[in-house]
């Protein structure tokens, strides 16, 4: 019971702080938006290639941009953990009787919820631009679940690496390494059928690939609930494992 309350109050705090600086959250949207607009134009003619699975590249690319928003939004969660560590905020929490694990969980949840809101904004922009097809309630929900799980995973990784590295600079490097290359090793930019086989192998163990594929299936409307279980299962496992790892790292942190 107290575990949930502790998590809830800390989550509230982080949300409050984020909402007080809405510009900061909007800044992280700039890059995905630029990608959506420029890449959408740059690769427009790809859709006329034989075998391309979609009518317009923009429509094909939208899931990739949504996932990118998730990555850019959640991979910096650890930076603010380091700031809180340096400012003594974490020690202050640690001398109080709260559950240690709720500190990590509240941070990760905050990051995931923030990212969820960001992807909704991107989706809205895409919809206005005509790139998004209207989706039914259930499929929309399935998309949000995928996005949420992926965000939990990457926010956990970021928090975990923050504890391991203890420094912002290497954490930013790791954050960059985690997001962009992994995005290339997925079907975010190029259809899965077009991927070279060695990239295909990497993609098959890349949670980002599953998220992109899942979101794409849902948005294209070409899915049955049975065909989506793999994506959801992979991301659920990914989210749980990384969250447990981050919590573990945090609890046995060095003093």
């Amino acid at each position, binding site marked *: *019971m107290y575990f949930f309350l502790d998590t809830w109050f800390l989550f509230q705090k982080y949300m*409050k702080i984020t909402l007080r*600086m809405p510009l900061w959250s909007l800044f992280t949207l700039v890059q995905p938006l630029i990608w959506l607009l420029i890449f959408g134009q740059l690769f427009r003619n790809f859709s006329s290639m034989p075998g391309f699975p979609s009518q317009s590249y923009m429509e094909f690319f939208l899931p990739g941009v949504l996932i990118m928003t998730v990555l850019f939004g959640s991979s910096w969660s650890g930076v603010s953990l380091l700031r809180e560590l340096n400012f003594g905020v974490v*020690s*202050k929490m640690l*001398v109080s009787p709260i559950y240690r694990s709720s500190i990590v969980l509240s941070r990760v949840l905050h990051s995931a919820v923030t990212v969820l809101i960001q992807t909704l904004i991107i989706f809205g922009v895409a919809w206005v631009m005509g790139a998004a097809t209207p989706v039914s309630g259930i499929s929309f929900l399935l998309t949000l679940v995928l996005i949420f799980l992926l965000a939990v995973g990457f926010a956990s990784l970021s928090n975990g690496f923050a504890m391991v590295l203890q420094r912002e600079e290497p954490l930013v490097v790791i954050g960059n390494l985690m997001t962009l290359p992994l995005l290339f090793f997925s079907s975010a930019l190029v259809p899965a059928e077009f991927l070279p086989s060695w990239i295909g192998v990497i993609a098959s163990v890349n949670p980002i690939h599953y998220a992109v594929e899942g979101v794409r299936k849902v948005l294209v409307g070409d899915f049955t609930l049975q065909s989506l279980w793999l994506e959801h299962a992979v991301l659920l496992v990914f989210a749980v494992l990384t969250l447990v790892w981050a919590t573990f790292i945090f609890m*046995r942190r060095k003093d």
Partner: protein
Amino acid sequence: MIKTDGLTKIYSSGCKAIEDLSFEVYPGEIFGFLGPNGAGKSSTIKILTTLSRPTSGTAFVDGHDVMKQAGLVRETIGYVAQETGVDYFMSGRENLNLQGRLYRLSSHLIRERVGDLLQFFDLQDSADQLVSTYSGGMRRKLDIASALIHRPRLLFLDEPTLGLDPQSRLALWDLIRRLNQAFKVTVFLTTHYLDEADTLAQRIGIIDQGRIRVIGTPDSLKDEIKGDSVNLSFESLNGVQKQMVTALRTEPYVKDLLEEEKGVRVYVANGGEAIPLILKSLQSKNLEVKSVTMSRPSLDDVFLKYTGKRIEDSADSGDGNPWWAKWQKGGSWGGQKGKGKAEEESPKLEEWENDPKKWNVSETGGQKGWPSDASSWSSKEEGDHSKNQETKTYWKADEKNKE
């Protein structure tokens, strides 16, 4: 209130932060932990506040073992870290509210106590402004206020006046004194300011390079250096001359002698009478004295006596790891494995539920809404030891450590 025995902390980098600390803090007193930067003050506080585990030795806070009963210790203590642990993007009131939540107080109780604290710390006017607009002194006050939300009986203040301007410093001293006197909060304070320890603390422990050199009341410590200190400085001294100067030690009127970089301090019963004798003795050896000053012993002399150096000269002994340590060859990448144990989980629910007084005491009345019965803050009073003038020296520098 605090009792430690043989407390030792060695960081995984191999750096020995504190070594064999044994001391006691009595209920109701302000205990000053005085030492230069890197002496091990913060390491000690971190162990006592359950933030860090000792490598060996034991520590009890209010009768609870800091390692085995971390949950109970956390309920007893308030902790104000060196860094201000308040959130800059929340208002003062929100910071206090959250703190109350983290201590699982009821919302009714939180409202009441937050009001009281804002009043006591004179922060009402800026209570609803973001902390980022606060001055350093206000932040510090808010930080202390939030450490008091659960009415701890023991308050840890780690270098509370570090980085404050002189005025805020004086105001904070006054506040700490009021907290201690009116509400019987035991205060464990670390500082590297001699005057701070001298004015605030009823007893002082001097720590240097991880070891406690002496413990006592400021007066009794100063009394140990009775009489005056005569400070001689020289233009330059070679080895032989230095030996001749330190030979003053054998003169009958000299009680003690300390070497400094460019001179010596001679402790004598009566400075006025001793100075001519000293000068005569030095002159007979053809030694040219550059200047002579005389002073009443201060804590600085006490510090000098027990550590062999002035507090401002004491070098940082490198407490903790540099951030890049782990990037070095053979850093803690591998060494980290399996070293730390998972932090203990927070106290079980029953501990809270079975003890309603822990989080549901609602006293009213009294000045400024604080409990009229001040003893409710320290229910386990064991007599006021703070007036105990007896000097307790648990550890004195021996020859080996004087170097």
